């Protein structure tokens, strides 16, 4: 009569979702993950280079901090990555998987570059820069709005759409930099080298400071936008549940379009900052994959702009450090930098698993049940 109830053999371990971890504990886990990743990187570097691992860590620091130029480069690159992360965050909060930041930055850069190239000589620098900024913002906005409108009205898949928009932007840049390139050269090169028309002015003799200030202001604005505004509240509700949004009378179409307009505008602005502030040219590499790296910056920081400052700084620091190792040790090529960054990112993302879940081993399971 009795049904067999012999318990199935317990597996060696199983995975249990944790309750919320206190914030200090989760940060300890993250710091530990970074340390462990450095140890692993050290071991791999030693195997490949036969160098003292501390010398290799030293090189990483040198890569970011040795000279003033490098320190500014670190800050500048952090600012750009942070700004792109700020751009994609509203869309991601709304669960609109915008992986088109790369293209939105590029098209903004192209718009800014086009202004520099075409009307650089016809007006004073202030008006030119203003026009460049506005057209870059508009271009980024259009690039984000196309998928947003199609999503809002015909429920198209935004992931594919935004991804494909990246390639369109890349191809447009490839085309125009060919058309605009000076005769006898292979590429576009620096625009307005002599007149410096459309170049952002130096502040206190520093080329990057203005960009950094703009991004700092943007970060504060985004923080306020996220923490205190009704618009952000609407974005959160739409992201969590469209049914709830309908129930409370939120116009979902409007929120999708408005949010992507903001997202695209910021990305376009970043394109302008890169071209006008530092590169003074446009290439298909202007965004340099940062449109995708920014997704990681944003997620790792749980969409909090202040944490994003940290995550973007960390990613740039490791990237610069790895690049330095590659240049100092002759036997390595640039792939080594990728390996090192890959390992570090793997640990940083992997530790989030241990923050959200715990592993219960056989035998110790009962007390946690």
């Amino acid at each position, binding site marked *: 009569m009795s*049904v067999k109830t012999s318990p199935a053999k317990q597996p060696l371990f199983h995975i249990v979702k944790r309750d919320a971890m206190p914030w200090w504990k989760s940060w300890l886990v993250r710091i530990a993950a970074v340390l462990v990743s450095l140890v692993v990187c050290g071991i791999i570097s030693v195997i490949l280079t036969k160098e003292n691992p501390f010398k290799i860590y030293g090189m990483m620091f040198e890569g970011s901090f040795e000279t003033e130029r490098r320190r500014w480069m670190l800050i500048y690159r952090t600012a750009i990555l942070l700004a792109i992360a700020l751009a994609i965050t509203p869309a991601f909060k709304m669960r609109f998987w915008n992986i088109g930041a790369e293209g939105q930055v590029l098209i903004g850069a192209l718009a800014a570059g086009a202004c520099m190239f075409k009307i650089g000589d016809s007006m004073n620098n202030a008006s030119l820069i203003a026009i460049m900024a506005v057209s870059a913002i508009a271009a980024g906005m259009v690039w984000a709005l196309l998928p947003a409108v199609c999503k809002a009205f015909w429920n198209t898949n935004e992931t594919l759409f935004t991804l494909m928009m990246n390639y369109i932007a890349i191809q447009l840049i490839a085309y125009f930099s060919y058309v605009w390139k000076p005769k006898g050269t292979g590429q576009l090169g620096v625009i307005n080298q002599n007149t410096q028309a459309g170049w952002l002015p130096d502040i206190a003799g520093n080329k990057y400071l203005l960009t950094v200030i703009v991004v700092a202001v943007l970060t504060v604005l985004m923080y306020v936008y996220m923490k*205190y*505004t*009704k*618009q952000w*509240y609407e974005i*959160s*509700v739409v992201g*969590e*549940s469209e*049914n*709830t949004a*309908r*129930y*409370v*009378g939120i116009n979902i179409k409007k929120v999708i379009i408005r949010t992507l307009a903001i997202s695209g505008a910021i990305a376009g602005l970043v394109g302008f900052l890169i071209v006008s502030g530092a590169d003074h040219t446009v290439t298909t590499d202007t965004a340099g994959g940062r449109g995708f790296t920014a997704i990681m910056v944003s997620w790792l920081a749980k969409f909090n702009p202040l944490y994003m400052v940290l995550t973007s700084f960390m990613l740039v620091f490791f990237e610069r450090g790895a690049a330095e190792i590659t240049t100092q040790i002759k036997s390595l090529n640039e792939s080594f930098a990728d390996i090192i960054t890959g390992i570090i990112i793997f640990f940083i993302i992997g530790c989030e698993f241990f923050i959200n879940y715990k592993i219960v081993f056989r035998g110790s399971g009962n007390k946690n049940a």
Partner: protein
Amino acid sequence: MSENKKTVLELANITKSFGSVVANANVYLSLYKGEILSILGENGSGKTTLMNIISGIYYPDSGKIYINGEEVVISSPKDAFKYKIGMIHQHFKLVDVFSATENIVLGLNEGAVIDAKKAEKRVREISTAYGFEIDPKKKVYQMSVSEKQTVEIIKVLYRGADILILDEPTAVLTPQETKKLFRILRKMRDDGKSIIIITHKLHEVMELSDRVSVLCKGKYVGTVNTSETNENLLTEMMVGKKVHLDIKRAVPVNPVPRLTVKNLNCVNREGVKVLSDVSFTANSGEILGIAGIAGSGQRELLEAIAGLQRVSSGEILYNDPQAHKTENLRDKTPVQIRNLGVRLSFVPEDRLGMGLVGNMDIVDNMMLRSYGKGRSMFLQRKQPKNLAVDVVRNLDVVTPNINTPVRRLSGGNVQKVLVGREISSAPTVLMAAYPVRGLDINSSYTIYDLLNAQKENGVAVIFVGEDLDVLVELCDRILVIGSGHVTGVVDGRNTTKEEIGLLMTKGASHKTEGETLQ
């Protein structure tokens, strides 16, 4: 006559619980060769759970299953196939971009290469044998609902099933399609197949089946021969004995019409008519119950009033108690309704998917309805915070603090947060859909008390319920709907569960008559 029939399937003492809810308690069932057996019961009476046990989707906690007199263990749908049991689910499980034949042979282990020609031939053979009309090459996304169902049935027959289980097969069909299906089912029975059909449409039970087994609240009530019973007797078996709940009910004070719905018609996204000519009045200071089998149009009715569901014709009139004017709420969005000064509160059926945002804390959930107030672009969190504190204190919400995401709360506490928010806006109309579903006894009584308090404040309360005992004790008047039609309005004080139960099942036959006339 049943003695000389062979029993092909027998269930004895089947019990299945989900947590603390007992879905089946010591259920007995027997099925003869070559018969159609109806399983009758209200929502939540355990019909579908029982069928899922037979088809291997659930495994019973205790009890035995016999096939052709031998005890068997059915622990997966594969086992069920082995014993020639096939189930046709209410929600079809087909691959849209595959053809009928491809769907039918899908999952059969007949080697890596599918012999399409042979399979097609076999599908045609089955179709002609029982009178199905199907194009084996047609893709599923081009098919009507009825054609999809046909594919599901052939799929089961293709696998050689002798016992077929159909879960509410007529719910999605037109009367003509239903007739056709019944013709086919009778043919299968005459061919020696045994068929179990789950339904709550009494006239279909009477028309189609040989015997009826009745379940009520997870318990087995009994089995009768269809020829020896009638609709009234079956209803009595189905609704069970009256349970005394002791819910207090005050006499309505000075009721005046607050919300008048006139000839409302409504078509859902699939183009099926879900509300037909619905008319009723909700008065201030009373609780109007809405009774009906799940999916009879209750949700669409409340959503139409709340401005969330498009209406094809009809009127929704709101009588403003202060301004003494009447507003038509039809085709207005929730925001427009609010801007008219209509204080309409709505506790939807799907609490965490519609009424609340699970990942937000109690404070942020409190301002879901009111965050937009004022011209400022910034949120005002002070009022919602005070409200959250009040709701937690007054309704005894068990929570670590007001900044806990609501998804972490238990079902009863989630509902208290939702109801607390909805009554905080001092509504003049309060609609609640299944507000006590899944709640324990104490939380349920808290909710009844809250609804009663609103009623005594002069609010027009509309309560959609499923437990007839509760409806009969709580509501002043009860509107009964069946298949989108109003089948009656009864006085809560002078009605019986049987009367309501009979009205609930009437809608379907009403519809059949209506449409055959055209």
